[in-house]
């Protein structure tokens, strides 16, 4: 890393970040996200009825399902839009490495999502006002939720590198996120384990270990395990590598 790398990454980041705020899509998504995450918490999660100052079950439980749809909606323009407008060609003839652009764009999307997540603060205020929550699980819950969103965004980045159509990118990313969620969903995994021969159980467990859900679940309950953080970080790294390959294939 030298100054030039940082400056290029920052320039890409800045442009990308500001462009989210120029687009109505961003505002629509944030509003839907806030309505969904807080609506689920209060109505389906029965935040007020459980008489329990914990956010794990009523609030964070729903986040993966929201991210499956909304994170691809935020990220789908990342590279698809560059391909469609033709600005990708312009960008790749400027003196920067593809990595600087990939990281710059991903960090911009990540920061946008951090803003969305931060806007759910009324839920935290509510439980603090009504009860005396343990701050630890709230912090790990937010970390888990954010890592889940980043995982979905990274998958979307990879999908968007391969297509100029935002619709195709959106559908493929949603499908991948659903897959990565369901293969670790406790109910489904238990059913599969019961139906397959016992000798295959370790394989099923291994596949479910690759799921977002498996790593999200423990963390959302307040159990902070470094391994789970490492898992999400490796998902991001692998997805960005796939993004890099996708961009390279467009220039072959």
């Amino acid at each position, binding site marked *: 890393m030298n100054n030039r790398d940082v*400056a290029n990454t920052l320039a890409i980041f*800045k442009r990308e970040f500001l462009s989210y705020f120029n687009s109505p899509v961003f505002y629509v998504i944030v509003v839907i996200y806030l309505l969904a995450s807080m609506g689920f918490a209060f109505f389906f999660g029965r935040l007020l009825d459980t008489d329990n100052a914990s956010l794990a079950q009523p609030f964070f439980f729903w986040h993966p399902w929201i991210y499956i749809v909304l994170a691809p909606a935020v990220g789908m323009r990342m590279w698809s839009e560059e391909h469609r*407008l033709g600005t990708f060609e*312009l960008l790749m003839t*400027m*003196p*920067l490495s593809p990595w600087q652009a990939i990281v710059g764009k991903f960090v911009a999307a990540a920061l946008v999502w951090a803003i969305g997540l931060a806007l759910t603060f009324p839920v935290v205020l509510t439980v603090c006002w009504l009860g005396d929550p343990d701050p630890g699980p709230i912090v790990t819950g937010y970390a888990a939720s954010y890592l889940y969103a980043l995982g979905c965004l990274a998958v979307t980045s990879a999908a968007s590198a391969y297509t100029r159509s935002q619709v195709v990118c959106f559908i493929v990313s949603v499908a991948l996120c659903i897959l990565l969620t369901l293969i670790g969903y406790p109910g489904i995994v238990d059913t599969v384990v019961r139906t397959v021969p016992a000798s295959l159980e370790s394989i099923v467990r291994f596949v479910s270990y690759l799921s977002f859900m498996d790593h999200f679940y423990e963390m959302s309950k307040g159990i902070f395990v470094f391994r789970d953080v490492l898992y999400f970080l490796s998902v991001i790294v692998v997805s960005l590598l796939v993004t890099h390959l996708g961009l390279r294939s467009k220039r*072959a």
Partner: protein
Amino acid sequence: MIQVQNLRKVFGSKVAVDDVSFTVEKGQVLGFLGPNGAGKSTSMRMVTGYFRPTSGKITLGGIDMLEEPELAKRSLGYLPENAPLYSDMTVASFLGFCAEMRGLTGSARNKAVDRVLELCFLENVRNQSVDTLSKGYRHRTCFAQSIIHDPEVLILDEPTDGLDPNQKHEIRGLIKRMGQNKAIIFSTHILEEVEAVCSRAIIIDRGKVVADGTPEQLKKLVPGVNTLDEVFRSITRPDTVK
């Protein structure tokens, strides 16, 4: 400044560019001619470092494009076909972004933006969104981007395509003026343009160089004809011919 040796590009089973070599020195304007689909854009995309050639060697200002792409691209300005722009930005913010990508910051960045806004007659639309620009302005904005860092090498893919006669005249004048101290390659379908602006021209047909010389030399290439248009039609084949 620009050296291209034995450039070749194969897409699947189709040979798009076959053994193209040329050099362009500082102060030269090279015209790139050829029918649609002859390999002009593909060649230019390889010279700019966007496409990776199947084989061959490209150096800009002595720096190898394939070995040190980021370094070689610093001396390069490029106007792609169809003049792509980020549609959610204003003209000035787009040019500011391009300046930053070229390592210009602070007052150097603002100065560079002002300079190209004036040079490309864009002052009227400075704060207008790129989305709402007419084709001529879009084209000039992208052109402005290519010269924002005053590059030594300029590659322009159909820079006058879609412009009205006044705008064409202005852009030609600009290319000619800049050609005095830069190495420029530009592709065009307008043959009068070649005579007006280029110091040399290459005609490409089906990926191969079929003619190379000054516009005057090219005119004498085919006996019995005396316009570039007729020469072009007699040495290239329409794309419907097998």
